[in-house]
């Protein structure tokens, strides 16, 4: 059930910081579908070596369907997706996106929303905040960034009513106290985290220490798959062997051989591309499969085989 792609034009590119650019995407041949705060799209990037599909949160106003806006941080250790967007894509270029999907929606029953962003993780919360301000929904945003490097939207978020937006510039030694943020919150409060893995873990740990139930924590963990060692994969049913390159995901290698698996997040979260395997060593990198399932299934969007044994998939 792969939704048909949408053709868009890059109508505007704006440098927000030395490493973050904002891209405005407008539809070519049809209206853009509506979306809810926290939604993401997959952007197809025809890099010279192969086509990458990277997921980006929509940061624009959900009420404005004249365009979608995303912001992209140039990743030094990236596989080329963010570099391609930063260095090759020009205003007027045509790209393909998937329709929006939401794996990070605000909980409608929360009485208070606590949004915690690190760096480029601010993007989904831009859409959150627009909608929450419009609907008068109680929330507070805590945004940690590095001044002069990842300070996107710091000015756009001000002025805000007292306490609604707090920013922390690491260059100035400003530190976010997660314990202080989570202490004394009402029972109906929910926490949302988007940012680097260490921020996510710190919030999870503090929340656990303070006795927050897991159901009140939400996070957007997906990122482009990390590179790894090259490995071989054998498709048992099709009797076919493929080589997966160091900076290529297993899902991408399968797609390059025209084996299409359903997928939404391409980051080990949504569970759509779960694939059974028969033998081989697996480096599980997802946040989806319970350990009990890891001996027979893997998430090819992020997880990898080992370089010294062939991974055999039940495909």
């Amino acid at each position, binding site marked *: 059930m792969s939704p048909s792609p949408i053709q868009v034009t890059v109508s505007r590119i704006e440098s927000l910081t030395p490493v973050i650019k904002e891209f405005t995407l407008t539809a070519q041949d049809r209206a853009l579908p509506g979306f809810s705060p926290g939604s993401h799209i997959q952007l197809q990037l025809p890099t010279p070596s192969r086509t990458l599909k990277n997921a980006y949160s929509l940061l624009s106003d*959900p009420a404005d369907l004249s365009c979608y806006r995303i912001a992209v941080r140039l990743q030094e250790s990236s596989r080329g997706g963010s570099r391609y967007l930063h260095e090759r894509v020009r205003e007027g270029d045509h790209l393909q996106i998937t329709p929006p999907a939401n794996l990070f929606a605000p909980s409608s*029953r929360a009485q208070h929303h606590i949004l915690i962003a690190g760096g480029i993780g601010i993007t989904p919360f831009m859409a959150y905040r627009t909608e929450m301000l419009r609907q008068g929904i109680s929330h507070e945003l805590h945004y940690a960034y590095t001044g002069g490097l990842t300070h996107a939207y710091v000015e756009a978020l001000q002025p805000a009513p007292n306490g609604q937006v707090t920013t922390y510039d690491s260059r100035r030694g400003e530190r976010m106290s997660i314990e202080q943020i989570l202490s004394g919150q009402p029972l109906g409060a929910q926490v949302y985290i988007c940012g680097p893995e260490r921020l996510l873990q710190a919030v999870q740990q503090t929340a656990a220490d303070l006795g927050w139930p897991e159901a009140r924590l939400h996070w957007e963990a997906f990122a482009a798959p990390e590179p790894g060692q090259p490995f071989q994969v054998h498709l048992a049913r099709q009797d076919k062997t493929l080589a997966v390159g160091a900076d290529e995901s297993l899902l991408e290698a399968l797609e390059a051989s025209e084996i299409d698996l359903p997928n939404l997040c391409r980051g080990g979260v949504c569970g759509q591309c779960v694939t059974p395997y028969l033998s081989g060593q697996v480096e599980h990198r997802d946040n989806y499969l319970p350990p009990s399932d890891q001996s027979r299934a893997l998430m090819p969007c992020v997880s990898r085989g080992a370089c010294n044994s062939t991974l055999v998939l039940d495909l």
Partner: protein
Amino acid sequence: MPTTLKPIESYRNDFSFRNSPEAIKRFPFPFPEDQYMYSVNIEPATPGAPGSVYEHWFDIDEHYRSEVAERAQVLSRDPDRCLVMPHMQQAAWDTLEMLMTHLSQDYPQWFSLQRDGDQWLWINRALDLQQAFTFGDASSLPYEPLEYITRQIQGDFALLDQRENNLWMDAGMVTGPADWSLKFDAGMSFTEWHAPVPMAHQMGVFDRALKYLMNIQVDHPVRRLNWTMTINPRLDTSSETFHEWGHERSSVTAENLAKLVHLRVELQFLARLPRSNALMFSIRTYLISLEELVTQPQWACRLHRVLRDLPDELADYKGLSQYRPLVVEWLRQFDPEMAACSA
């Protein structure tokens, strides 16, 4: 052939509801095989053949005026059949937008929508209604948005909030349910409101269905058929009015069953509501008397086999047990007893 809307017929008292030969031909007969068992029979709701019930997202047929009048009657007696919890306001507006947009695109002869920013003009020529209103401002409509638009459409609607890895029945307009009640199920999770269904839990049907439904994407709706049987063409077989219709099951005789017993098919349609991220679950009900149904010989043959071989638990759950033997016996005359019905 364009649909002609019939004058108002009734789903109660004198039960004047009838299907025209055209309506019979497009009836969504729900059995793809000669026997029936549960399955997760969900498919992408891609546009179906012109004139079929699958052509558009929201099917308008010859019974439009009758169903609208029936809903108004139910609501005048029991306004609580429409319910919107406070956190479902945006889902209600999403629903109004989706219905108005699709109806005006798919049935321009009856419906039109003009939008100028948040100033909207809705025209329903079938009911001779015209309404200018401000999108997002409930005080500019005669009813709150979900009630306003669903008073002008066929089928029931449940709006499901998606949170905590489950779906929650937190809003809806349900005036023609097949033995359930929005008031009883309101606020329940998907897991809770399916608890009474026999057999399917053990088969893992609901766990798989829930995961599938939570992954429905904007602009990619899905659909499935469900079925039961109803005595008389009665749309409102709600749990809270059981005392009005439950006893009719014992009035079935060999002589009256062809007119009395109806196959009741639900075309269930599920779509992601874009702004609220809620899930719209619409239940479009089609009724056909056995007398009308047996005008299609292959349907008569197949229904005979399905009812004959249906497990007792399912017959009990669907409320058919009392009159099933009589119906099976009567349908037997339409089964040539060859290997398969649709030879």
